[in-house]
C-alpha cells in the first residue's frame, strides 16, 4: 500500500469493529491484520504492549463532555511501522486504559485511534488532527459517530471531517 498524499490518514480496509475484552486482545487482533498486510514489523505487537504499559495513551474526554466516550491513541516507535496512517477501532466492549496525562488514573475507553507513524519529523501532526476532530466536531455529531455499527460509515465520517478541518 502506498500513501498517495500526506493528508490521507484513513483507509477503508483498515477500520475495525472489535469484540475484544482487553488491551492485549484488541492489540493482537489489529496487529495480525496489519502484519499480514506488511504495514508493521513483527516486533510491533510486543512494543505496542510495552509502550502502552509504560506510557499509556488513554484520553479522558469527560473533561470536554460527559456525553462523549473516552478514546485511546495506542502507538509505538517509528521503527516498528512501515507507513503513516490512523487505524480507527470501535470497541463493542469497553476496555480499561490508563490516562496519558495522568498515568495513575484509568477509565473505560470505547474507541481507539491507533496511530502508525513512520516519519515523526514529517508534517502530519496526526495526534493534533485527531484531537481537532474530537474537540471541533459537535457533541451531537460525535454521539452519532460513536454509535455507528459499520466500518464503511466510520471511514466515510472520519475522512470527511478530517478533510474539512485540514482546510480550515
Amino acid at each position, binding site marked *: 500500500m502506498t500513501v498517495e498524499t500526506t493528508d490521507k490518514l484513513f483507509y477503508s480496509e483498515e477500520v475495525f469493529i472489535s469484540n475484544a475484552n482487553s488491551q492485549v486482545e484488541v492489540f493482537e487482533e489489529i496487529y495480525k491484520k496489519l502484519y499480514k498486510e506488511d504495514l508493521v514489523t513483527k516486533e510491533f505487537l510486543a512494543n505496542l504492549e510495552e*509502550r502502552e504499559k*509504560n*506510557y499509556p495513551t488513554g*484520553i479522558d474526554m469527560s*473533561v*470536554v463532555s460527559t456525553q462523549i466516550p473516552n478514546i485511546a*491513541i495506542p*502507538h*509505538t*516507535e*517509528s521503527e516498528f511501522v512501515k507507513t503513516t496512517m490512523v487505524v480507527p477501532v470501535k470497541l463493542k466492549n469497553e476496555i480499561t486504559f490508563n490516562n*496519558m*496525562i*495522568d*498515568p495513575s488514573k484509568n477509565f473505560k475507553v470505547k474507541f481507539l485511534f491507533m*496511530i502508525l*507513524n513512520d516519519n*515523526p519529523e514529517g508534517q502530519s*501532526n*496526526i*495526534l*493534533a488532527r485527531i*484531537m*481537532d476532530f474530537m*474537540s471541533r466536531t459537535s457533541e451531537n455529531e460525535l454521539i452519532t459517530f460513536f454509535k455507528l455499527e459499520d466500518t464503511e460509515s466510520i471511514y466515510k465520517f472520519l475522512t470527511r471531517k478530517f478533510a474539512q478541518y485540514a482546510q480550515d
Partner: protein
Amino acid sequence: MFKILAACGAGVNSSHQIKDALETEMKNRGYDVQCDAVMVKDITEDMIGNYDLFTPISKTDLGFNISIPEVDAGPILYRMPAMAKPVYDQVEEAIKNS
C-alpha cells in the same frame, strides 16, 4: 534562546505536538524558544543539562534528579485553548524566571 526539552514514550506523536505548540505560542508571546522532542528513555542527565525547561506529557521519573524546571504539558494535547493556557502560562513564567 530558551531551550525546551519535550518528551513522550514513543517520541513520535505527543512530544512533537507539544514542541510545535510551545514554539508557536511562545513566539506569539514574543519569546525566542527552541524545543526538541525526544523519547523519555533516551534522556540522560547530561542531555537535560543542555536545556532550560523540561516539558513531559505527565510527571516522569527519569531515574535521576531533574536539574531544570519542569512543566507537565499533557493538557496541550487536547488542542483546546482553555486547557492549554495554564500550561503556556507556566512555560512563560519559566522563561521570565530564567
